[in-house]
């Protein structure tokens, strides 16, 4: 019985099929909202699915002078990392499929795996756009990662646990968005940085470096990276809603909250101009990290008092 439950959790819900499909739907909603805000029509609902199917069906071109093993394996590692994170996340407000003390830290690192793999994938090729894109992706990783981590650990400190499930239960009665507003903002904007959404899209700024680190990717590899990003979007939003907007809850209520966050993200994407990579780094270290640390200091003082 345990084995059947494990397989279901891995392949159907919350991991596997469900989250891949959810990722595509979230991606569609994001694209549609941005398009409507920009006075465009936007894609139809099945566009991300169609894109993925098309990419999977296409030939994967292996460029000269890459290490073939890494070229093929890196997208898989990225997707595996994102899917592993799903298992410890309270998807649609339900209990996480698996849980152990300290799973928050593991989850956050699993989420970083995607960016790391994109960076390495870019560095693996000899394409100059990819190399510049990879440098930028990794630079950006170091910029937002620490503030993002600190922002997610804020609720953990308040809840006194490093286990996502326990924090989620604690958050049911404590809406951290009110007690830790800075952490909430930094986490939300950090997620945009993680997903390389505008204004943090300089690692894939098309007007400068074409498609950034993924310029050489086509077919299956590109499709898997995109699926990975979709999954990460779902996991990221779920974590933020769980931690800051009332923890585990009725799936419908939880879903509405997640969509709300997505709308905020879409609005930010339309409003802001792309930041240069040095500006991104400056923003995170000068403001993001310092503000979160300040909030931590307040938290710890309150906690002790």
């Amino acid at each position, binding site marked *: 019985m345990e084995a059947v439950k494990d397989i279901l959790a891995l392949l159907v819900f919350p991991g596997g099929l469900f989250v891949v499909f959810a990722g595509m739907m979230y991606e569609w909603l994001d694209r549609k909202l941005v398009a409507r805000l920009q006075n465009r029509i936007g894609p139809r609902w099945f566009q991300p699915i169609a894109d993925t199917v098309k990419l999977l069906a296409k030939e994967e071109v292996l460029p000269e002078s890459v290490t073939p093993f890494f070229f093929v394996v890196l997208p898989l590692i990225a997707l595996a990392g994102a899917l592993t994170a799903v298992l410890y996340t309270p998807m649609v407000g339900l209990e996480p499929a698996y849980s152990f003390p300290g799973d928050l830290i593991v989850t956050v690192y699993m989420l970083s795996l995607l960016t790391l793999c994109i960076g390495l994938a870019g560095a693996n090729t000899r394409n100059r756009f990819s190399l*510049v894109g990879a440098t930028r992706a990794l630079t950006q990783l170091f910029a937002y990662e620490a503030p993002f981590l600190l922002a997610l650990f804020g609720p953990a400190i308040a809840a006194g646990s490093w286990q996502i499930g326990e924090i989620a239960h604690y958050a049911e009665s404590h809406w951290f968005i009110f007690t830790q507003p800075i952490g909430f903002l930094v986490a939300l904007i950090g997620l945009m940085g993680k997903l390389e959404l505008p*204004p943090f899209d300089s690692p894939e700024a098309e007007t400068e470096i074409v498609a950034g680190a993924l310029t050489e990717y086509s077919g299956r590899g590109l499709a898997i990276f995109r699926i990975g990003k979709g999954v990460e979007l779902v996991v990221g939003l779920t974590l933020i809603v769980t931690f800051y907007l009332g923890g585990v809850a009725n799936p419908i209520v939880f879903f509405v909250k997640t969509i709300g966050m997505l709308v905020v993200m879409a609005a930010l994407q339309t409003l802001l101009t792309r930041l240069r990579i040095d500006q991104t780094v400056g923003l995170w270290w000068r403001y993001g990290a310092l503000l979160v640390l300040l909030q931590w200091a307040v938290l710890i003082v309150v906690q002790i008092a």
Partner: protein
Amino acid sequence: MMTVAAPTTQKSEKFIVPIGPQHPALKEPGHFEFAVDGEIVTDATVRLGYVHRGIEKGTESRNWAQNLYLLERICGICSHTHAFAYVLGVEQLAEVEAPPRARAIRMVVAELERVHSHFLWLGVGAHEAGFDTLFMYSWRDRETVMDLLESLTGNRVNYSACVLGGVKFDINGEQTKGILEGLDFLEKRTHHYLNVIQQDALFLQRTRGVGVMTQQQARQLGVVGPTARASGVARDLRIDAPGQHYNDFNVNMILETDGDLAARFVVRIRDLFESYRIIREILSNMPEGDLVVKRMPRKIKAGETISRVEAPRGEAFYYIKSNGSEMPERIKVRTPTLCNMASVLTLTVGQHLADVPMILVGIDPCFSCNDRSVTVTQPSGQREHWTWEQVRRFGIEYYQRQGGQ
């Protein structure tokens, strides 16, 4: 064609980022190579000619009237500028003068073209900065002026407004009303865009202090048009050399002194207000009379002349030499982009790679304009040849199949 640079990070070797011939930042083909040290550009070179069509040479085997339509196709954005400069030159050589009403209509089209060109540029500039919302909105509003041009001339691009010795069409009362309404809408939107580019903090981070060209540099590099005016160099042919045309109507010089990208944005937007004002003034004081001179000779007197017109991007320079026959001896076209291109190569050095596309676009480059002279048609394999009628029918049927959208 591409220089092969070893993509290593060793200090001794240059790391070159190629931009073009095909690149998302370029709306037309050109090839730039930027040597970078990390994110900082250390050297820049350019190779043009990917849309070289042999127009200068082509003019020498066509008659004076045919050349008008050939030269108009140098550029799809400022096609009227080229026709305008050409007819000015030929009229000077033939010693005829276009009637006042024709001159007024030429100016209306020229200013409408400037409006459409600046809106187009605003969108492209915003896109390079990664501000796609502004791009989408400005191009939506640009449709207004495209519709006005279509209602006047029948074409969205390549208007063919000029003929030798006059213009092809008249502006009637209804069209005047349409233009004035369109301008009111555009003026409202332009105020909004001026606010955005002057106040949006993140956008200013990408434009203020970027690609600064001092007044001294601007003079030395010989830049023209809005690029020069953004650096405080008062250079506008509508004022400097009004000729018979802009003599009749007063134009104000739009100057900014900062010389950075922000100033180039502001200059062009303020240029728009000036264009609106000029168009309104011309329309309310439209002279009566003929549209074309009574007699325009087929053979143009031998001689040479220079005619210059302020294109949306700056000075367009025409040198025309006639040998007294039906065909010109030599026509030389120097478009504003060629003048301004040198500034790109100079200004990008020392800047961030991320700012390069913006600096490049900051001069509003137009490669088609640049690339004219000589190309020989290549034999084209198995290509099917359609008549114009076939193409037209295919287009109509295609869209009917798509549900008439």
